[in-house]
């Protein structure tokens, strides 16, 4: 099923245009939504998840008009917000049973079987009697995935799920997500480029409420082949370099020199070396192009 977003606009009361005339088509599979903090990712995802209404525009998923028939979407929606809490003094098992009820599983035995399965998938079965409020960050995030799976969703929206997870937890989380996402639409927002590179077959870069680029990770990096150059410079030279070239990123080396990456169609100077394009480069180029031109 395909998610189509047309001319979506949302302005908040404080004047921030969180979504600015946004158009997007998302097919089956993992879709990565990449953008800096405050780009409008959460606003977009909350709007798709029926939690807020846009000022104008339309969202269609399969044959569901999302803005008109919210209930129809909710039946096949799995949503994991950026941050969520749980009722205190309720165990994972109890809470999942509660969510299964809310999601329309009426038979008690069905619920029990379903809850057991999602607990096993997320490796929470051993701690199912513990209060969720006492879980560590990673466990709580896994609980979030568990509740999301309960209605066997066709559209899954996860908002920055890997933020703050340790590497092991992050891998585990992404694996589960990948497994789930093989035959449904998963929209996955992050500001970590790595996540997208590893998982997504499609991606979009979002900033200031607009889609800057809609592509696939491989296509995007391929398009930049031969256009990325690196050089090691002294810290003091950075300002001149930035003035002369399109510097995408700069990192410190251990000896206090800097490693810069530059975008240019041809080799900028003799001492630059060609480098394999990374997804980071795609991201930075897209953001740079969107920067307002200072007069």
């Amino acid at each position, binding site marked *: 099923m395909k998610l189509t977003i047309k001319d979506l606009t949302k302005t908040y009361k404080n004047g921030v245009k969180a979504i600015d005339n946004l158009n997007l088509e998302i097919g089956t599979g993992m879709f990565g939504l990449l953008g800096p903090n405050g780009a409008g990712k959460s606003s977009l995802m909350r709007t798709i998840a029926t939690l807020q209404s846009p000022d104008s525009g339309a969202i269609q998923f399969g044959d569901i008009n999302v803005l008109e028939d919210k209930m129809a979407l909710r039946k096949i929606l799995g949503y994991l917000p950026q941050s969520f809490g749980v009722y205190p003094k309720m165990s994972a098992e109890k809470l999942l049973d509660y969510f299964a009820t809310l999601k*329309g599983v009426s038979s008690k035995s069905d619920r029990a079987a379903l809850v057991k399965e999602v607990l096993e998938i997320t*490796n929470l079965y051993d701690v199912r009697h513990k209060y969720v409020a006492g879980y560590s960050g990673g466990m709580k995030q896994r609980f979030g995935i568990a509740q999301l799976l309960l209605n066997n969703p066709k559209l899954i929206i996860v908002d920055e799920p890997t933020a703050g997870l340790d590497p092991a937890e992050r891998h*585990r989380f992404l694996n589960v997500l990948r497994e789930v996402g093989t035959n449904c639409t998963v929209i996955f927002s992050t500001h970590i480029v790595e996540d997208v590179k590893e998982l997504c077959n499609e991606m979009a870069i979002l900033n200031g409420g607009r889609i800057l680029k809609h592509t696939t990770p491989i296509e995007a990096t391929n398009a930049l082949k031969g256009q990325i150059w690196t050089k090691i410079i002294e810290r003091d030279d950075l300002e001149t370099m930035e003035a002369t070239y399109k510097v995408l990123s700069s990192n410190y080396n251990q000896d206090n020199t800097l490693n810069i990456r530059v975008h240019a169609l041809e080799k900028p100077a003799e001492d630059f070396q060609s480098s394999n394009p990374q997804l980071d480069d795609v991201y930075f180029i897209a953001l740079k192009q969107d920067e307002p031109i200072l007069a």
Partner: protein
Amino acid sequence: MFSTLFNYELKYWFKKPEFYIYMAIFFIIALFFSASAAGIFDSITTTTGSSSIVNSPSSITGLFNGMTVLIFFLFPSIIGLSIYRDYKSEMHTILYSYPFTKANYLFAKFFSAIVIVTLILFVIGVALFIGFRLPGTNSDIVTAFSFKSYYIAYAVYILPNILLFGAIVFAVVTFTRNIAAGFIAVILLLFVQGLMENLLSDPDNRFLAAMIDPFGAAASNYYTRYWTVSEQNELHLPIKGVILYNRLLWLGIAALVFGFVYKFFSFSQNAISFNFKKSKGERTTKSNFGGITRINLPKVNFDYSFVKNLKTTWKLSNIDFKYIVKSWPFLSIVLVGLIIILIALSEVGNLFGTKTLPVTWKMLNGGAAFTIAINICTFLYAGMLVHRGKIANINHLVDVTPTPNWTLFLSKFMALIKMQLVLLSVILVSGIVFQMYNGYYDFELGHYIKELFGLQLINYVIWAFLALFIQTLFRNPYLGLFVLLVLSIGIPLLRFAGIEQDIFKYNEGPGFQYSDMNAYGDSFSRYFAHKLYWFFCGLLLLVFTALFWVRGLPHSFKERLFIAKSRFKGLAVIGFAVFLVCFLSLGFRIYHENNIANERLSSKEIELQTVTWEKTYKKYENSPQPRIVSVKANMNIYPKTLGFEADGNYIMVNKTSVAIDSVLLNYNDYPSTFTFNKEIDLVSEDSIYNFNIYKLKQALQPGDSLQLEFTVKNKPNTWLRKNSPVISNGTFINNFAIFPSLGYSGGELTDNKTREKYDLPPNDLKPHPSDSTALGNTYIRKDSDWIDFEATVSTSEDQIAIAPGYLQKE
């Protein structure tokens, strides 16, 4: 550092809309009280006549203190919030690592909150000042402004009180990190204060009572108890002796409480918790590295039908209900309520020092002490349940599930009703326990159940409708709670603003009475008619709750109005229309009965009638009248239809020394006929005051007699209105109630200030002990002395007729 923190706190409050809402609410309340005390509603309701000055120093202290008690309910969300805010926003994790001292932090938090409270108090003071002087108030009972009376009220009574209660709330919230705990603390303190006042009401304990009343009212009462009206009007409250000791004692306790907070507060990340079983620390390691699982969800049935949603509603209400009964604010309210009930029960058994049997209806009367607890729980938990998702930050997970809104809010409504059932059972259980304790084993379970879970429950359910709506409308549960408290206290007081009919005041209506002889009698149908009427209003509120229910992200009020409008279609419109029609038609039926089919007089109209009555007929007060010497009465009582028919015969004799040419007949508002045995003309017939004047063709000479035959019966009863004093078992009828009397009957306005307003002379003083005219009358009536009396009474077979005298024939 102190001033930085302090100023930051103040600025925070100045930017909050709540601050201005609180000020506005208190301004209006204070204005209402002071203006109505000063008689602003005199033109639409009864005159507030009194010889006491409404803004005398003692009245101002009383009024100001009364307002302060209301402010205590805001303390958790002002003083408690000042420190709770840092926990809630998790600012404390950063703040507590900053380089300021405990003293700076605590003092800045506490005193900034006290300043905010003081500003609200200042607004109250201003409102009182304005209220007394609004155009339309009665300037006779308002004296010149005295800054000193406000100042003493504030400095001697209010400031120490807010410091004390503030310190307690501050301590409770700081250590529990829970606003509700602060709220419960306030309620408990008020309960305890009331309890102590009751226990120490004995005059022997006056000094002790004056010392330990935390409000200081008992202390000032210690001196002002025997003040005359003019002293009350003019003197400032003394600041001496026990008042000083009392104030110092409680200030000291406030300081102790604050010192306690200072000593035990630490900049730690976690709240203090009590752990009764110490669990051994255990080292935990991670074992879930990598691992790829195949996802194979079991096939289950998804059901989105109406019936399934109903089942979900029930299940969710159980979850919410468990949350309520397990929460300790609830438990502590129940516990304190139980104590209060038991104390109340031991009081109702005592009738002027005479022990009476602990029968069921008495137990139920004593249980009424629990009413406040049930209402507070309803108001509080309506807010807690409506905002439960938001408080736990789980609401977004819930809101994206395919559960319709009605399931969500109806489940909360049902949880509230289940809670009310539990609270009502507390009354039942404590009643039975008390009966057993007193060796009384005639438990009328049916009566308990009928009254608690029938008559009383519907009353609380109607409040639950309002509570759910208000708490949905307001985004802050404590603001919602406060508004609900103000409404529940304020609605009955609307009477003073001239709104007298029950159908205009939410959940008001005639009550029910129970007696062991007559059970609930006819009070039943009127009670239920009104409760049904308000129940429909509650259902309307439920529709509004549906329209304003927040799903998803919080919206501005404008957006919510817009959403409400878009939701107003289909079932919502049908429900709204049906409930509105039921509400209005039942309302109109009651209105019709009380205003159109029968005459209804407002208290203002009654006051004016009393004036006219006096002005028109007072002149006949001393006109000589014959005196009744013999009465024969036939009284037919119909307990089945609650009606009566009576006729009677008076023989009257002119006992004066002058001829009497006219008879002044004073009768009751029942269909009546009168015939005299002498030729007589009806000169004036007054159906408003039921006062007729007859002129005899031939004057009644001294010693002559006159006979009057009369009949009287009741107008037919309707299901909303009873027009007779007859009840189905155990009717008691007084002759005044249905039989006529002679002469001007008095019943004048008594308050001299009010009389002055209507150009009436001051009240007659009580007659002198040697006044011979007054001595000529008994204390009961002026138209007769000892009489011959004969009565024939008929009634249903299962009743026994009783009348004065000796039984001649049965």
